[in-house]
């Protein structure tokens, strides 16, 4: 098998050489490492030895001719062997000259200042993700830079003024909690109203500090929860867990949002005791001094929305319980007594319950009992 010998780069970066003299004629034998041809490169005149013993079958260039690096220089084979060109590697040849320099600095101020509003790469990516055309956005950042808010505003409004506020941790917790209740609990809300005159009279008649309305209401409601245990319970999987203790949540308004504080063991407390505890919780909530023990684990919740002027509502059941009662403000209103329209005061009542465990009839019965109990306060 003939050996094809390509001219190597023998001088650190050479590309070609001139063949000075062939030291072996075509068809003549040559020994291993025996000088085969003398070449002249840019660096040296030197002899190239044969890489194989055999007979010289081909000379890649005539004396005085140029041989390129990687071009076939010689073929060495067996005596009598024939060899046809064509299988050799193409020489590297000359590289095309580099393109001319077409310029250096473009002194065009317009190019240097760029086009379109400046925006950081992260903002460009956001705009791309949201389909916002940055060219149509006016930047509000330093130097007219487009900010993340600018991009988001361009998506949601097409351009009106917006203010963006990050939720407080408390608010984010409330939001998460309410979302979970609303998503998981099928709410039914039933309404009623109760004559407030007895309760109001009882408050007015109280000795010492006027008891909070919540204290009177809790005292009236706790006995009902014994009779209607489904409303003081929690649903765990396939089980309804009835609670024979009464920790009543009350909604308290705080600078951070509406929170539910818990009156523990409400059934065991006197009216005065309930009043003191409710005052403590309300103050603690406002001053952010309540601990986790005061804020968790209500078995039933009472929301006095009347304190902030509300009447009827659609309260959301605290997660982990089955019902919530909101009590609105007892404003003077026309009421009918013995077919006569007179001015009276009634509490608007809104009861939300978990429809998975409490059906409508039970809900109505409980509401009837609530009305009766409220109207019986102090009687």
């Amino acid at each position, binding site marked *: 098998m003939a050996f094809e010998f390509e001219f190597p780069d023998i001088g650190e*970066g050479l590309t070609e050489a001139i063949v000075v003299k062939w030291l072996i004629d075509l068809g003549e034998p040559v020994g291993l490492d025996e000088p085969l041809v003398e070449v002249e490169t840019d660096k040296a005149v030197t002899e190239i030895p044969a890489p194989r013993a055999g007979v010289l079958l081909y000379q890649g260039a005539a004396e005085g001719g140029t041989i390129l690096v990687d071009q076939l220089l010689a073929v060495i084979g067996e005596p009598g062997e024939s060899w046809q060109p064509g299988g050799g590697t193409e020489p590297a040849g000359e*590289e095309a000259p*580099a*393109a*001319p320099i*077409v*310029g250096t*600095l*473009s002194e*065009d101020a317009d190019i240097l200042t760029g086009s379109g509003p400046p925006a950081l790469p992260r903002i460009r990516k956001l705009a791309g993700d949201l389909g916002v055309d940055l060219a149509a956005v006016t930047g509000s950042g330093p130097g007219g830079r487009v900010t993340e808010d600018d991009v988001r505003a361009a998506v949601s409004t097409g351009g009106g003024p917006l203010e963006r506020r990050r939720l407080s941790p408390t608010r984010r917790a409330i939001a998460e909690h309410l979302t979970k209740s609303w998503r998981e609990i099928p709410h039914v809300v039933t309404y009623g109203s109760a004559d407030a005159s007895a309760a109001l009279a009882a408050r007015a008649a109280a000795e010492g500090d006027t008891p909070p309305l919540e204290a009177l209401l809790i005292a009236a409601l706790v006995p009902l929860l014994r009779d209607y245990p489904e409303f003081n319970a929690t649903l765990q999987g396939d089980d309804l867990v009835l609670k024979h203790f009464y920790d009543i949540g009350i909604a308290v308004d705080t600078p951070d949002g509406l929170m539910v504080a818990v009156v523990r063991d409400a059934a065991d407390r006197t009216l005065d005791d309930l009043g003191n505890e409710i005052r403590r919780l309300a103050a603690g909530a406002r001053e952010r001094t309540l601990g986790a023990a005061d804020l968790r684990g209500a078995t039933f919740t009472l929301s006095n929305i009347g304190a902030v002027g509300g009447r009827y509502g659609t309260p959301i059941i605290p997660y982990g319980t089955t019902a919530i009662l909101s009590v609105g403000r007892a404003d003077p209103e026309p009421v009918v007594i013995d077919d006569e329209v007179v001015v009276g005061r009634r509490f608007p009542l809104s009861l939300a319950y978990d429809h998975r465990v409490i059906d409508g009839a039970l809900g109505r019965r409980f509401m009837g009992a609530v009305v009766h109990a409220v109207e019986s306060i102090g009687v």
Partner: protein
Amino acid sequence: MPEVTIAQALNMALDEALATDPTVLILGEDVGATGGVFRITDGLQHRHGAERVVDTPVAESGIVGAAFGLAITGMRPVAEIQFLGFAYPAYDQLVSHVSRIRNRSRHRFTAPLVVRIPYGGGIGAAEHHSESSEAILAHTPGLKVVVASRPYDAKGLLAAAIADPDPVIFLEPIRSYRAVKEEIPDQPYLVPIGEAGIEREGSDVTLVGYGAAMRDVRRAADRLAEGGVAAEVIDLRTLVPLDAATLVSSVTKTGRAVIVQEGHRTAGFAAEVVARLQEDALYSLLAPIERVTGWDTVVPLRRGEQHYIPDADRIVAAARRTLEA
């Protein structure tokens, strides 16, 4: 105009400098009769005499240190170090003396010398013969660093370097010495130091390179063009002082950039180019800037060199990534 190689163009520039300026002299190992290991000074000693083309003992620190003294007296020495990997003994002279004398003496003494150094791999040479440690030189305050990639620039930049009032390190890409040919004027001319060259205009992506890597940058631009991508090709030509204006102008237009360097990756010169672009062209960027570099390894010897030297494949891949970002 004659078509010449980079090696021939450099020889022309040196010949013209010796012929026109009597203060010019060449010194280095084997620069005389043998014409230097790459034959860049071929014939110069014969034409201009052994007093002006001086063979030195084997002492790189001595060559640069002596050139420093020669330059202070008013001579214009052009020193040759045989390979960049042999220049390290001279670094103390470069870093501690050549680069500082103007500042130390408040302009009283200056060292307008040129140190020519072949650099880069791709010829399967021995260890230390394939270094691309130009970042170390560029990092040294007070040195100008010039890298030619083609015959026209090689001649004009070397003439400018010899005329420059400050020390210039003139790097010559070994594997391009004889591989790149171009027609150039046979009259003297200058290519200004500090100006990058835009070799090819394009709107899609800017390819930035210098020295030996330019051959692969050009190949990559050709291949991108076959795929319909118009690459703008910039040859830095001077590393220090860097022509940031040309770079920023181009990247402001294209929004995409690929920087190619054969040197090691960490703290390489491409990192400086990337930093400068993010400072001055960040708001124009449409994609992360790509670096195509050698690795943080010793430059492999002949058989392993293919794993190291950036090639057109890697440049094209990087350019395509910027276009897909």
